[in-house]
């Protein structure tokens, strides 16, 4: 699905989704969302939820915990899921809310937002890899410049690949609002990355 990611990415989370979509559109009788289990959802979406959380500003050191929180919420609310949106949209909506909640808590706990974490023990030997890692870090820093509302739209649309309609559903905001947030977010990201580019060359 995306370059640079291997087998996990190739298993795009659509199978459960399709069932729920069909249920939502009422086109045919499919197993209701009740039939889904937390376990199935975890296997389908955990990797994607974790990626979304990271890009929503959850620190790497916390992300596994926060991702588990997401699935605790999923487990608790699964029986209330009405199939009005796709499972994926619903789940990303939960990710967004849990991430926001976590950031607020983290803010209180750490007082000051943590700067980009050290890039680990990775010692890239190839220049290409180094460049890509730098680009990723710059991109993450650009993301940090977005406020929550814009960041959520941008991450769900550009990275997680939701449609704007799904984004609006996940964030529970009007479609037009989502569009204007995306537009604004893109301008900020573009500006930040152009500055990075200018500085890097």
């Amino acid at each position: 699905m995306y370059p640079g990611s291997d087998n996990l990415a190739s298993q795009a989370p659509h199978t459960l989704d399709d069932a729920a979509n069909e249920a939502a559109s009422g086109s045919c009788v499919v197993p209701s969302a009740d039939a889904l289990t937390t376990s199935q959802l975890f296997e389908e979406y955990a990797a994607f939820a974790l990626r979304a959380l990271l890009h929503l500003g959850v620190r790497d050191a916390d992300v596994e915990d926060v991702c588990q929180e997401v699935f605790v919420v999923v487990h608790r609310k699964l029986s209330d899921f009405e199939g009005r949106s796709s499972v994926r949209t619903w789940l990303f909506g939960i990710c967004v809310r849990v991430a926001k909640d976590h950031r607020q808590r983290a803010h209180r706990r750490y007082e000051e937002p943590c700067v980009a974490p050290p890039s680990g023990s990775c010692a890239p030997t190839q220049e290409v890899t180094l460049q890509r890692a730098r680009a990723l870090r710059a991109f993450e820093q650009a993301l940090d410049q977005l406020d929550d509302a814009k960041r959520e739209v941008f991450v769900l649309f550009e990275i997680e690949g939701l449609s704007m309609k799904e984004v609006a559903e996940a964030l529970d905001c009007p479609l037009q609002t989502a569009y204007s947030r995306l537009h604004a977010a893109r301008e900020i990201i573009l500006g930040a990355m152009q500055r990075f580019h200018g500085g890097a060359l």
Partner: protein
Amino acid sequence: MSHEQDPPRWGAATNGLPESLVTGLEEARGVLPGADRLARMRAGLAPLLTVGAAASLGAVVEGSTAAQAAISGSGTIFGKTAVSGAAGLSSKLLVPWVLLGGVVAATVVGVVGIRSAQVSESPSASRARSVMPSSAMPSSVMPSSATPSSVMPSSATPSSASGPELTQERTPEVVVPKLPPVHPSSASAIAEPVREAGSLHSEARLLAQARAQLTSDPRATLRACEQHQREFSRGVLSQEREVLAVEALVRLGRSAEAQARVARFRAKFSGSPHLPRLEALVSTQQPLKQ
């Protein structure tokens, strides 16, 4: 997934984007957790991911003790979450959270124990297995080699095996009678975890066969690696599989593919102990002929 009114997503084809932005986006889209991360989370969520929630009661009681140990002792991230999560939630949610945190911590403790010392089966290993239902053990946690005795107190002799902070919170009267059997074959066999427990052996067997053919028939090794990737896409031994695949590719002289594979590996498992070896493998341009 896209809507007709949606603007096209940013990418290499978008005009006017700085190259670094395209690269950064591509990298961001490629950020996916390794199997180890997923396995840890799966383990932490084990009580929710299985149908037989009652079966995990023993683990829960024991787990909360282990959580105490984790918090007061090693202070793992998971332990911290148990505390902060519990503090931040309403009283209605408190109990499940503490329980969850407990099991998470218990599992982490188990993992740490296993990672730090791979010792053969011992009485405490079977204890650990009986304490945690098989579902609480992620496939990465080799139950057969688990010796978490340092942290997981034996409930039969709590005071002898555990430190003071462990015994303090213990409720052995509850634990002992509720322990699930060591081999939970009778316990209405929750299908998924049982399969997972066995899958580690299948994984290991497949990779062992693959390795055996490395010098004689690297193509067969590669095929076995592909089979492993298909069958155990989230397998515990995916790092080992990748190492093997790279070795096979190098032997076949397919160095470009080997390098690409190492690059992916590096992106995914940046701190892996296999990484130096992999990099050494692809940095030697000469194909390894046996």
